[in-house]
């Protein structure tokens, strides 16, 4: 499996838009979209957990080339908290209940649009990483917090 590419992010954006999927880029991939210079391996999507959105998500994933079985489609439609897909054209982590974020709706209201990509606000990305409290997050948090200050300052100036 090759590294995730900009073109594939566009494919997600376009397919999810066509099917009306409500989602946000989250995690380090979300931070990278906001401008954070770092490396990561996977794209993480925070997806609204609802039957309707689950059905739309399955349709979009199949269109993108993920060969979901009926059982897997059912799990995505009915709501797991976390699904890891490594059987498609690129790797994708679907997070339905990220640590540190109470409700999808709250994160949706705070979202940032980057070239049509819906991205979690930097504060939500930080909150989820801090709440997950993994070793790898702990190591990247100081730099990500600095980026938050930089990003907020820059966006205050440009708005």
């Amino acid at each position, binding site marked *: 499996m090759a590294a995730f590419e900009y073109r594939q992010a566009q494919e997600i954006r376009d397919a999810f838009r066509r099917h009306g999927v409500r989602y946000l880029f989250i995690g380090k991939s979300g931070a990278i*979209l906001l401008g954070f210079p*770092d*490396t990561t391996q996977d794209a993480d999507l925070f997806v609204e957990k609802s039957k309707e959105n689950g059905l739309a998500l399955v349709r979009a994933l199949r269109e993108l080339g993920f060969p979901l079985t009926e059982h897997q489609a059912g799990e995505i439609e009915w709501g797991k*908290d976390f699904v890891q897909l490594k059987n498609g054209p690129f790797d994708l982590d679907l997070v339905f209940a990220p640590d540190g974020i109470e409700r999808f709706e709250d994160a949706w209201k705070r979202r940032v649009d980057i070239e049509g990509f819906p991205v979690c606000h930097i504060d939500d990305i930080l909150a989820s990483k801090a709440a997950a409290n*993994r*070793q790898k997050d702990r190591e990247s948090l100081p730099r990500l917090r600095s980026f938050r200050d930089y990003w907020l300052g820059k966006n205050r100036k440009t708005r």
Partner: protein
Amino acid sequence: MEKEWLEEFEAAARRPLSLRMRYAFIKTYKPVLDDAPYRSFDTMEEYRRWCEENLPDWLGYGRV
């Protein structure tokens, strides 16, 4: 803010998104994690626990 970090943030801000993403996404094999085509977890707690019990420590998925 560390001067080096500020310089990196400013340099990244000057690059177009497509280039930022080309630099950012890498692929290396992660043992165990990359060995199944599909996994699902009912709760995040279940996922975190699975990571701690099954993944090598050096991958950094264990909680502190």
